[in-house]
C-alpha cells in the first residue's frame, strides 16, 4: 500500500467516521493533493457495517439518516435505528416527529444565554419516531415550509463511482414533497 492508500484505508475512514482518527492524521488527509477515488465506496461500506439492518445504503443524508434500497424501484429514508421515513424524494421531515418551541421560555432551554425572538420565529426540532434522535433544527417564521435540506442525485453519484444502479431512472432526482402534501389534503377531504 502506498502512503496515501494507508492514509485513506477503510480502517482510517471508519475511525474518521467514529471521531477516533487523530487530528494530525486528518491534517495529512487534508494535505493530500489528490483524493482517493474509491472514498465513497469505502464510506458506504463503513456505514453499512455500523447499522444492524440489511438494506443497502445508497447514500447518507444526515448524521442518523440514510437512503436505502428496499428492492428495485423502492428507495426510502431510513434511520440508523431502523425506522423508515418514506420515499427519499419527499422531504423526510413530513414523516418525523416535530416539536415547536414558540415561547421565550421554551427557546431559552436550548438557546442558552441568548436566543431568537419568538415574535418572529419558532424553533422546530424534528425527531426520529423510532429512536427520538434530534434529526434537524429549523429556526424559521411559523408558516414557513419545512426546509428540504437535500435531495441527492443518487444515480449520478453511483455512476461517478463506476456503478449503474439497476433501477436508475430520470425521475429519481425529483422533489416529490408537493405530491405527498396533496395526498394529505385528499385524505383530509375523504
Amino acid at each position: 500500500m502506498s502512503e496515501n492508500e494507508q492514509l485513506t484505508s477503510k480502517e482510517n475512514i471508519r475511525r474518521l467516521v467514529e471521531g477516533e482518527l487523530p487530528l494530525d492524521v486528518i491534517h495529512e488527509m487534508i494535505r493530500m493533493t489528490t483524493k482517493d477515488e474509491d472514498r465513497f465506496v469505502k464510506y458506504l461500506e463503513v456505514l453499512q457495517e455500523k447499522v444492524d439492518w440489511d438494506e443497502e445504503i445508497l447514500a447518507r443524508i444526515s448524521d442518523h439518516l440514510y437512503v436505502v434500497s428496499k428492492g428495485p424501484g423502492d428507495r426510502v429514508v431510513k434511520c440508523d435505528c431502523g425506522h423508515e421515513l418514506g420515499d427519499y424524494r419527499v422531504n423526510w421531515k413530513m414523516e418525523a416527529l416535530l416539536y415547536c418551541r414558540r415561547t421565550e421560555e421554551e427557546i431559552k432551554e436550548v438557546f442558552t444565554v441568548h436566543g431568537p425572538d419568538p415574535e418572529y420565529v419558532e424553533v422546530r426540532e424534528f425527531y426520529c419516531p423510532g429512536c427520538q434522535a434530534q434529526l434537524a433544527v429549523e429556526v424559521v417564521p411559523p408558516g414557513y415550509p419545512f426546509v428540504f435540506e437535500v435531495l441527492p442525485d443518487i444515480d449520478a453519484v453511483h455512476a461517478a463511482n463506476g456503478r449503474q444502479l439497476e433501477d436508475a431512472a430520470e425521475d429519481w432526482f425529483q422533489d416529490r414533497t408537493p405530491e405527498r402534501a396533496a395526498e394529505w389534503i385528499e385524505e383530509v377531504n375523504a
Partner: protein
Amino acid sequence: MSTTTEVNATVQESNGSAASTSAAPSLKGADIGLGRRIEEFDAALERTGHLYGLERLELMEEDPIKFDKFQWQLFAAVNSARETSKYVSGSPAAVGMAELVDMLALPEGEVVAASAGLAGHIGSFPVIARTMIERGCEDNPGIRDGDIWGCNDSRAGCPHPTDMYTYLPVFHEGELVCWVAGANHVADSGHSICAGGVSMYSPTTYCDGFTYGPMKIGERVGDVYVHHKPFLQMMDSRTRTGSLNILDEKMRLTGAVMLRERVLQIIDDFGVEYFTRAAREVLERERRAIAGRFQDWMMPGTYRTMFFRPIQYRELMASLYPQSAKNWITHHIHTMTITPEGRCNVDLSGTSSQDYHWQNAFEGPFKMGVTFSSIGFIGRTPLVNTSMFHVIEHERPPGSLVNPTREDVSAAFGNAVGAMHGVLDARTWGFSAFLRGFLEESYLLEHDWELFGGEGMGEQGNPWAIGDFTYEGAEPRGPSPWRDGEPMTLGAGNPEADWGEVEEWEYVEPPLLVISRSLIPDFCAHGRHRGAIGVALTQMVCDPGAYLTINDCGFAGSKMQAVSVGVCGGYPHINSKTMFFHDTNAAELAEKSAHLPADFVEARRMIEDGSLTVGRISEFGGHETPPTEVKHGDLICRGHHAGSAWGDPIDRKIDLVLNDVQKRWISAEIAKSIYGVVLSEDAEGVWHADEDATARTRDEIRASRKGRAKPAREVWEEERSWLLEGKHPAEEIHEMFQDTTSYEGWHDVFFGFWRLPADTEL
C-alpha cells in the same frame, strides 16, 4: 464663456463615437478595445467551456518548471506589494492586521493573483472592468499608460464605499497587458448616518457617503505617480477620517506601483506572450481544480439553505425618511444544485425585494461578499483568482435585493449581504462533502464578520471616527462532523487570524478602554460537536469629550439566527448581542481597582447583586445598533462569534462534555439539561462523569422528546390553517411571504408545500 448647450455638445462629441468627425475634440486615450476583449472572453468560454478557450494548458505541460517559476513570481509580486505597502498606512486595520490586498488582473478584469489579506476583493474587480466599458471610460476620459484610477462605488463593482480601490493599467510597448490594484477597507467613508463604514442604517443611496469612480485620480509624471490634489482634498473633506484615508490611498498606490514594476520585470524575463498565455493558463487550471472539487468531493444533488434578517427602521426613520419608516424581515434563500459535471448553480429565487434599507447588494458587492467563504472552502489556492465565478453561478432575480434595479436604494453595505450569502454556500459545501465521505474537508465555514463604527468630538474639539475590526480579524471556525467549532481561529476576510493589539486599538479609539476580551460560558450553539464559544469584547467609555456615538453591526446581528437551519440536528449560529449600560458606577469601580464585568452575562449578575449600578440599558434586538450616544463610565458589552453546531447534543461524547465543564466553557447544569451528561466536582475542583446516570438522563431526554412532539403532519395542518386564515405573528412576516412568493420559483415551492389555493392572499 460657453452656454450650457455648447458644453453639452462638446461632451457628446468627446464620447468619441465612430460617427463623430475627425475634427471633434476627443479625450480618447490608448486604443485598447476593452469591450471587444471582454466580449471575446465571454464568447470563448461559452463556446468551449474553457477560460480563454484553452482546451490545453500547453505552457504548463511543455515546461512545468518554467511555469512553476512564473506562477510563484506572481505570488511573490502580489504578496510583497502588500507586505511592504501596508507600512505606508496609519490605520490599525491596515498596519496591524494587514487588512488590504494587492491584485493582478488581466485586461478583461479576471484576477490571476491576489495577495493574502482581503482577498475577497477579487470578486469585485471584473465587475469594475466591465463597468468601465459600460460607462465609456475608454473614450472619456480615456485609459492611458501612467493613469491612476480609483473607485469605491458599489454600483460600479466595489464592495461598499469604505472599500477603496486604486489601480493602474499596465502597458507594454503600447498594449494593455494587465491591471494592478490595491484595495483596503478604510476607517470611514462619510456615510451620513453611520460612522466607520458599517452602514446598517441606510435609508437611501443619498446617505451612502463619499462615493466615486471608476475615475482617474492621478497620473505618472516622469517616474513618479502623483495623485490629483482635488481628489485627495475631497477625500479629506467628505470622510470623517480624512488623514487616515489619504495615508491609505497612498498605501494602495504604493502597492500598485510596486506590483506594476515587478510585473514589468516578469514580462521582461519571460516575454509578453508568455506572460499573457501563462496567466490565462493559471486561470483555466484553477477553474478545472475547482470544478474537480465539486465533481469529486461533493454529493451531487439539490440543497436548500436560508436566513432571515429583521430591519427595524419604523421609529428611527419616521421623522426624516418616511419612505424608509417601516420594519422588514428579509428572506435570503439558496437553492443550490451541484451537478455531476462539477457545476454549482445557486438559484436565489425567493430572496426579498430591494427597498429603502441597507440590504441591497449590487453585482460587485454580492460577488465580493460571497467570495470570502468561497476562497476558504472551494477556491483555496496560493494564487487567489476569479476562476471560481465560472464554476459557481448565482442566479440573482432582477428586482430582488441581490440584484437591485432601482437608482435610489442604498448601496452602502451590499458586501455584507453577499458575505452572508457566502456563508450559505460554504455551509452547504461542507455538508455535501460529508455526504460524499470526505469528512476531512467537511466543516461549516461561517464568515462571522462583526464590526463597529464610532464618531465623536474629542476634548480639544477634534472630530474623529473609527471603524473597528477587532472581531472581524479573528473569527471562529465552524464545527466538522469530527470536531467542535473553535473561537478566534480564522479570518475569512483575512487569512491571518488576528485581533490586532488592544493597545493599538486604544490608541486610535482613546475613549474606549478595553475591559475584557474573553469567552462567555454557555454562549454557544449546542450539538454533537458544539459551535465555537462566543467571545466578549467589553469596553468602558473614558472621557469621550463633547460627544461620542457608537454603531454596531455584523453577521449575526439578527433576532432570527444568522442561519436558519442547523446541521444534522445541531442548533444554528447564535445571535450576536451588544448591550450599552449607561450611567454606571464603572468608573468609580475602576478607580478603586474593584471588579468590572467581563461580559453582558456578568454585568447582569452584578446589577442583580448591586455591585454594578446602571441608569439605563440600550439594546437593539439583535445587535444592529444605530449610532448610540455613550458617556464617561458607560459600559459597552458585546458577545459575538457563537457559531453553529453539528448533530444531536445527546450524541456528544461524554469526555468532550466533561472537558467543556472542566474548562468552565459549559456549566454543569447545561451539561445535564442539554447534553444529558451528569457530572460532579470533587474537593480538588476536578470534574467526573457518572456514566450510568448519564445513560438514564439521556433516556429521559428521549422520552421527553417523544412526549412533547407531534407528528409533523399535525403541525403542517396547524400552520397551513394559519396561512389560509392570514394569521401571522408579525406584520413583517406577512409582508415577507407576500413579497417573496411573487418570485416564480419560490412561489411554486411555497404554494406546493402547503397546497394553498392559487388565490390565497398571504
